């Protein structure tokens, strides 16, 4: 295994990778418009559904229309992070494992897991991060009563934890490629599952809720941050989220090392 580099060096490395990847993407500017069209259509559809649901009822599983708008904003924002940062890197990793080109990463004198996680960025997909952020801001302003400093801080913290949890989940899925080689269909399966995050996981029946909380950590990525901002997050839940994410991260780190032992390289 590589010796662990200093934190500062790791960060500088990640930033360099991002800069290179971003300047590659910046050449294709029409993609910005396409992402924008997609984003606007998706958000418009979601708003239409919210409108239809709340034309028939005043609250859904204890959430008001305004609060669900926060959930939707977080869903769009986290979706943007996944599509711009997490998914491109993981798909690159899948194909590297299949083709044996992961050799080029592993021979570099830096932490392997860090390198495979920062190599690519699809910058135009990040449009959703801003659209989602805008939705959250609009929704938060319209919530009855002003949103305090504490909920905002809790929101920022849980959002970060949620993104880490989703990243770990994706890396765990991708690590499966060390054993079964072809895992592309998992991408489609995850895309399908992620849609469930559009609504708070509390509205789903028990078995599905547990799956969406622990198997696909959607609850931590979307519902918990939205709960934080709407003032429904207890200290216990915050501590639980931190604990779960830390445990998941440690487990992922361990699984990555085990997976690497099964990697046979290009010459096999």
């Amino acid at each position, binding site marked *: 295994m590589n010796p662990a580099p200093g934190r500062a060096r790791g960060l500088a490395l990640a930033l360099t990778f991002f800069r290179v990847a971003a300047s590659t993407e910046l050449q294709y500017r029409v993609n910005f418009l*396409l992402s924008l069209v997609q984003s606007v259509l998706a958000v418009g*559809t979601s708003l239409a*559904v919210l409108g*239809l649901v709340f034309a*028939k009822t005043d609250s859904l599983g204890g959430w008001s229309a305004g609060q669900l708008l926060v959930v939707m904003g977080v869903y769009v924002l986290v979706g943007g992070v996944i599509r711009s940062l997490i998914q491109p890197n993981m798909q690159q990793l899948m194909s590297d494992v299949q083709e044996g080109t992961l050799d080029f990463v592993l021979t570099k004198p830096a932490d392997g897991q860090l390198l495979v996680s920062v190599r690519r960025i699809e910058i135009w997909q990040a449009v959703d991060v801003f659209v989602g952020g805008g939705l959250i801001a609009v929704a938060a302003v319209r919530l009855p009563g002003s949103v305090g400093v504490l909920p905002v801080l809790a929101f920022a913290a849980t959002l970060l934890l949620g993104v880490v949890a989703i990243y770990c989940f994706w890396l765990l899925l991708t690590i499966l490629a060390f054993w079964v080689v072809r895992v592309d269909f998992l991408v*489609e*399966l995850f895309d399908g599952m992620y849609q469930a995050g559009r609504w708070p996981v509390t509205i789903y029946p028990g078995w599905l809720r547990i799956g969406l909380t622990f198997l696909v950590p959607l609850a931590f990525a979307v519902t918990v941050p939205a709960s934080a901002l709407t003032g429904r997050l207890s200290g216990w839940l915050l501590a639980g989220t931190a604990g779960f994410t830390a445990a998941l991260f440690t487990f992922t780190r361990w699984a990555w090392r085990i997976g690497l032992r099964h990697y046979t390289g290009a010459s096999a």
Partner: protein
Amino acid sequence: MTVPARRPPPLRRRRGPDRDRRLTGLPGFYLTVMRTAVAVQFQYRTANYAYMIGMVVEPVIYLVVWARVAGAQGGAVDGITAGKFAAYYIVWTLVRNMNIVFTPFGWEERIRQGRLSAMLVRPVHPIHYDLAYFAGWKVVVVLLWLPIAAVLTLIFRPTFDVSALEVLVFLVAIWGAYLIRSMLLWVLGMVTFWTTRVSALYDIYFTAELLLSGRLVPLALLPAWAVTVADVLPFKYSFGYPIEVLAGDLSTRELLTGLAAQAGWIAAGALLVAAVWRVGVRRYSAVGG
């Protein structure tokens, strides 16, 4: 491992020369292509299954949300109970599978890589190949769908009230839906003859379809003006109408006028395909070949 084929393989087997005459030609062609599709797609049953399971998440989300709303409103939304919603979205999964046809995004590859050339030298219009291939695939899809439907039925307890006529109309209507969507997406795909910057156009089309076909919500829940718009568009005849034949309470008159409307859209689709193809194919020049 092999890659799941999204692209149909070339035809190998041909009927004997005496079977190739005009009258038996086209049905023979369909039968052969369908048989090939069944054989190919059955090999990729695992990939097909993973895809179908991913697809089931969408209606389950809609179903859970509307069942919740029905519960909060004392059991029904606009007269639709949780059990009716369950019936709607379970039939949805079959109709959604019937709606899978050659994607308009596939046309870019067909044109750019010159794959269309091989289709042009055949003595039948190329749409027949797509129609036959995807129809054959449906045989596999429906077989794989049965266990999924059984599981969904056990979990969500739909209420069905089905007459023999409804079943009969449904069996015809799902194929009508298949034909309508095949032809409309073919026309949309042919836009690629003129420009390859099509994805924004397709996104807009698919969003309109999602909202006005009955895929997102049963059309009865839309505001009145949207229902009027949906009535004059073809989308609902390839999605909402077949579902409501089985899961809703349409009168005999509504059942039959629906079929008539489907026939009308099939005819319109066929005319459009023929007309656009005629103009579009002149702009086609294969690269390399």
